[in-house]
């Protein structure tokens, strides 16, 4: 028998992939079902990103596994039109990522100002 060692948890998680970030951002405002997510992400990204069905549901499955989003019961929900919403952990992860972006852009602008001076 071999024991598989667990690596210690990383305090600063890796950056989120773009589809994951955009899905979390889209769900931050309100619960949405799959197609509404694709359309909202198109709008959010100013038509730069259109997720394919495979990409969207790959990311949704990961987020469900991780507990960052959950399926949302709606009165008119059918099996093929399920809505999703952020969990408190998902919201926390999104805030962490946006904080990281804020720090990065602050540092980037500071460097630009140094270059201009």
């Amino acid at each position, binding site marked *: 028998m071999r024991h598989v060692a667990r690596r210690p*948890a990383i305090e600063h998680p890796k950056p989120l992939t773009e589809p994951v970030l955009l899905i979390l951002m889209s769900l931050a405002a309100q619960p949405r079902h799959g*197609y509404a997510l694709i359309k909202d992400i198109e709008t959010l990204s100013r038509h730069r990103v259109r997720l*394919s069905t495979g990409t969207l549901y790959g990311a949704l499955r990961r987020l469900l596994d991780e507990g960052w989003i959950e399926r949302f019961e709606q009165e008119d929900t059918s*099996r093929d039109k*399920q809505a999703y919403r952020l969990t408190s952990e998902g919201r926390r992860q999104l805030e962490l990522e946006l904080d990281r972006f804020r720090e990065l852009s602050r540092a980037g602008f500071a460097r630009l100002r140094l270059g201009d001076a």
Partner: protein
Amino acid sequence: MGAIFRVLLYLYPQRHRELLGAEMQAVFEQGAQEHRLLGPSQYLRFVLLEVGGLVLHAAIAQFANATHRGYLENQVNGTLAPPQDLPDEVIEAQNRVAVNLNQLLLAISHHQFVQARFYSNEERKARENLRQMQEKYGIGDPQPLP
């Protein structure tokens, strides 16, 4: 096109299909309806991107399924799967599946379809071997093989 999409969904692990297959089909059909109105070239582009995305993400899902790692554990947190005591033969069989799937993904991403077919066959054999090993040791698979 909906029928082809439905068939392609069989590339995904059974658990993924059961959980999300019907929704994926519905989302694809909504997108197809919208793009059909935009003209043949837009529709063709949509179909190619959808099929490509589906095949790629099915391969990723199979990889995650075979290695029993949560997707986000691989992609976001960078942690390993929970500790488990398994016979060496099973671990080796799991690794063989993972290696072949990894090669398959690489081949697809480089558009090397001859190699992709080769690794697809190798992966199928490795998966069958893994199933036999699991049977031999009476290990129940929490995420059943497709």
